[in-house]
């Protein structure tokens, strides 16, 4: 029984989410092979070979895989997947985009966003925005699964010495093409991997006021997130959104500033180790999940907190 893990990458560097996925694969048990499908992605393959616990790295280097278009990548994974008991990918936008297509090509059900491995065929996953946890068992011949990174501690990025094998496969399906992308630039740590996250909501009032949070975040080495209200109001870009429909985070410390705590937001952060809420509304639902709550005006509290650190 071997497990195929699909590497998350941008052709230059291995995505951190891959390490959490390998951790989930280790809990399932079996030989772990990592597939790097991309274009000019030799550096990624080398990084994947060093990951602890990986026994083989398969590299499919083809121009058709440059942007991970599911129409081109899914047939490759489905074909390879036939030789494995499990096919795993991180529950990132790339993994979520590609893997269900793979599952359908293999004619098997997929299990999304597992947070726990009970046994090689039984997994736990949150449903209803994290308000219930389902234990599901799969009898599929090939188990196709996406892994929620925050549910598994990452394996070490160094220490492994896997063999690298090149695959000749790959072609362009010719039904889709990459036009361009607009990536948000940030020097702060990545939201889903940060140890500390400071998030702002509607209570920030406007985008300029987020500067207060950036200053606080820089003191803490934190990433900055936002609620849907703040994104919809145009204060910050959508890739900063934490919640059921945004990113799922589970940092050591989550500081919610001016966020009421709607169900959809809590779905994205309630597994954080320590939650601090700063809100002027004493009745805000966020205080029900906060370990430490401070009732008051964020425009007084945040600068004071920044100075105190």
């Amino acid at each position, binding site marked *: 029984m071997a497990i195929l893990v699909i590497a998350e990458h941008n052709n230059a560097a291995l995505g951190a989410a891959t390490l959490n996925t390998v951790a989930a694969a280790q809990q399932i048990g079996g030989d772990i092979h990592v597939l790097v499908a991309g274009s000019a992605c030799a550096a990624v393959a080398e990084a994947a070979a060093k990951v602890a616990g990986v026994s083989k790295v398969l590299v499919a280097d083809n121009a058709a895989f440059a942007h991970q*278009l*599911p*129409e081109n990548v899914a047939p490759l994974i489905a074909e390879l997947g036939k030789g494995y008991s499990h096919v795993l990918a991180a529950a990132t*936008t790339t993994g*979520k*985009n*590609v893997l*269900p*297509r793979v*599952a*359908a090509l293999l*004619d098997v*059900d*997929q*299990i*999304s966003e597992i947070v726990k491995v009970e046994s090689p065929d039984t997994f736990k996953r949150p*449903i209803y925005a994290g*308000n*219930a*946890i*389902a*234990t*599901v*068992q*799969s*009898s*599929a011949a090939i188990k196709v699964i996406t892994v929620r990174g925050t549910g598994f501690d990452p394996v070490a990025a160094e220490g492994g010495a896997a063999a690298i094998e090149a695959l000749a496969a790959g072609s362009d*399906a010719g*039904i*889709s*093409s*990459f*036009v*361009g*992308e*607009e*990536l*948000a630039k940030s020097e702060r740590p990545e939201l*889903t991997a940060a140890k500390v996250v400071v998030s702002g909501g509607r209570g920030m009032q406007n985008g300029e006021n987020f500067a207060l949070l950036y200053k606080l975040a820089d003191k*803490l080495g934190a990433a900055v997130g936002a609620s849907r209200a703040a994104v919809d109001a145009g204060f910050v*870009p*959508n890739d900063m959104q934490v919640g*059921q*429909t945004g*990113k799922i985070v589970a940092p*050591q*410390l989550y500081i919610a500033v001016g966020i009421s705590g709607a*169900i959809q937001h809590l779905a994205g952060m*309630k597994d954080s*180790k*320590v*939650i*601090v809420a700063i809100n002027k509304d004493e009745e805000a639902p966020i*205080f029900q999940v*906060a*370990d*430490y*709550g401070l*009732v008051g005006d964020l425009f007084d509290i945040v600068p004071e907190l920044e100075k*105190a650190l």
Partner: protein
Amino acid sequence: MKILVAVKRVVDYNVKVRVKADGSGVDLANVKMAMNPFCEIAVEEAVRLKEKGIASEVVVVSIGSSAAQEQLRTALALGADRAVLVESNDELGPLAVAKLLKAVVDKEQPQLVILGKQAIDSDNNQTGQMLAALCGFAQGTFASRVEVAGDQLNVTREIDGGLQTVALKLPAIVTTDLRLNEPRYASLPNIMKAKKKPLDVVTPDALGVSTASTVKVLKVEAPAARSAGIKVGSVAELVEKLKNEAKVI
């Protein structure tokens, strides 16, 4: 072009669901149901394409119990022309739903199929991608902008680091993200008119699709509750607690 939109009847997003004591599932008796929010966005986008003169007909389809007719009527009131209900009382997984939708696609031959990116009950985020695979169509998932240009579709997608634009050959599948549009409300006259619009009911058997699943839910439980927190009186106290009690800074 003809557009097919898939909609799902789910528990209303404002409802705080309760897990049944016997662990068999979530208690949905007497709970308010509604159209999945992402499906509302899908209907809105199809109707806007019709208003722009790009779409000639908008067909909505739902798979579920006869109660899902309510959500189909809502979609008709929002501007869809015709509805199809694939009636099944079983709880179907995304693969079964995708296979049923594929049968509807084969019959209706739409140029574009729009679905929500995920249903807020099962949180799977699979059906659109699976349907695309089964049909052999291109997919534009998590769309925040959709533009028809001849026989091609330009879709801007919300990805982890920002936005990505892809060009898809039609026919294609699009799944909607929250920021694609702001769905309209149904007006009373339109709700009345929607009652007269055609709504066909078919069964999975009639479509020749097996809905067997390899996934079994063993139990459903409430997530671990967080222990009650405390309110602190000042910033100094907060910092002290974070440093010495929680030891996170």
